[in-house]
């Protein structure tokens, strides 16, 4: 365990703004000798929703995987609130409050929907009986398929399960990797509602998305990546679709 920084806003005499919930600074990531992320810095403000955009293969998913600890950072730092977590194991980061919904709606395929949620609840130190129930309330569609193996869900069901499973850990920051990819429009709306609700309840979210309208409806800030670097960022009001066109087209 690394020592916590000394200064907190509650300390007498300290006038420090609370840090962003997620702060990535000068991050470098490489697959062996091939560097894929260069000097990436990115903040997600507490309670905010930041959307990360860009074409396929520019490093968006790699960045999320590094934040959650599946890939090691070569240099740079990742902090969650006051805590630096750059070198922590993935489960420690989950304990610290990060939840990750991978692209492709990964699941524990032979475990049932209920077991998928339960196994995560049981692994969490904050294991409470009601977390699974709360997750199911948010995605009522899952309640009808609790006993089905997770490998046999439709795309929309699997995506909802993936988000529900992330919520079971009671996160402070949710990392979502392309939640609308290949999902039918009616379910995209349900997912959008769920994300909007989560944001209203104060959860901070980093959303990777190529579906620009969806992203713009939800996010307050955006960042665009191209070949491993952040090439544009700012509040979503300033997002200029025309000039971003060439960075976004698939």
């Amino acid at each position, binding site marked *: 365990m690394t020592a916590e920084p000394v200064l907190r806003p509650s300390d007498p005499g300290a006038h420090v703004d609370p840090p962003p919930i997620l702060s990535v600074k000068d991050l470098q990531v490489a697959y062996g000798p091939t560097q894929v992320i260069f000097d990436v810095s990115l903040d997600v403000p507490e309670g905010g929703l930041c959307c990360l955009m860009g074409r396929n293969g520019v490093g968006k998913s790699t960045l999320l995987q590094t934040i959650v600890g*599946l890939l090691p950072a070569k240099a740079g730092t990742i902090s969650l609130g006051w805590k630096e977590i750059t070198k922590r194991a*993935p*489960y420690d980061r989950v304990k610290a409050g990060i939840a990750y919904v*991978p692209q*492709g709606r990964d699941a*524990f*395929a*032979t475990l049932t929907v209920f*077991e998928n949620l339960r196994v995560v609840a049981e692994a969490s130190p904050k294991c409470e009986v009601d977390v699974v129930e709360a997750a199911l309330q948010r995605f009522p569609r899952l309640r009808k398929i609790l006993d089905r193996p997770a490998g046999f869900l439709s795309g929309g069901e*699997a995506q909802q399960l993936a988000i529900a499973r992330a919520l079971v850990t009671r996160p402070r920051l949710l990392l979502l990797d392309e939640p609308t990819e290949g999902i039918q429009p009616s379910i995209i709306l349900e997912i959008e509602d769920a994300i909007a609700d989560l944001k209203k309840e104060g959860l901070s979210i980093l959303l990777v998305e190529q579906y620009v309208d969806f992203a713009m409806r939800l996010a307050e800030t955006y960042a665009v990546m191209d070949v491993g670097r952040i090439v544009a960022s700012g509040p979503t009001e300033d997002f200029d679709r025309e000039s971003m066109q060439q960075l976004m087209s698939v």
Partner: protein
Amino acid sequence: MDVIFNQLFVGLSIASILLLVALGLTFTFGQMNVINMAHGEFIMAGAYTTYVLQTAFGTGLLTLSFGLALPAAFLVAGTLGLILEFLVIRRLYGRPLDTLLVTWGVGLMLQQLARDIFGAQNVSVSAPGVLNGGMEIAGVSLSYSRLFIIAIVALVVVVIASYMKRTPAGRRMRAVMQNRSLASVSGVRTRRVDRTTFFIGSGLAGVAGVGISLLGAVGPTIGLNYIIDAFLVVIVGGLGQLRGAILAAIALGMANSFIEYGTTASVAKAGVFLLIVLFLQWRPQGLVVQARRGLAS
């Protein structure tokens, strides 16, 4: 008719032993993809544990010492497995060939250790009085010790299946085996689960050793007789599949028994190998495969 019953019982008996030695491997090999050649020596450790308890308690308390041998062998072999995992295997995850060679070496060292402690001579374990003799059903004589092995296997299968299905630790184990990286980013301490899995897998080898000590002399190389068969059961059954291992053990046991009838043990062995080669040509992934639907594979 008697012949068929008799061969069925022999087949079931062989199947139960195959399954007993393979159960532990469905964990360590099937779920963790670790080719642990020292698994046979964990079987040996279980067999010697039985011997040590009998020597300590004396033959007067044979039944007691034999009953104690089951949990004791589980703990002894499980602990050996934990030590092996901690010292060697955890450094070699994802390098199956290196693991194979190193654990083979460790197995040889354990055999030598057994020779140093117990002598090169085989020792013998006596079965408790209640397991002497047998009964006769429909003209087939069923020996109690073989029935006892079938009972142990059935018990272990039930315990393991409900552990995997109904306990939090079992669910975590299945989650890690299914999708290790998803488990780790869901907050599961995968290293701890690996250790538990290895402990249980090795412990089950110890339990197998207790069963096998009933069948013949116990010696330092007793595990070698079973290790290849155990791997075959796991491969034919499908990696990590308890259900597959059960089916494969029964199929191989029956094949062995019926080919052996009218031929010899060696012919039967060769025949079973031939069948396995043909089967794997047809179905290289084994009997039971995890079915799933989805884009990613």
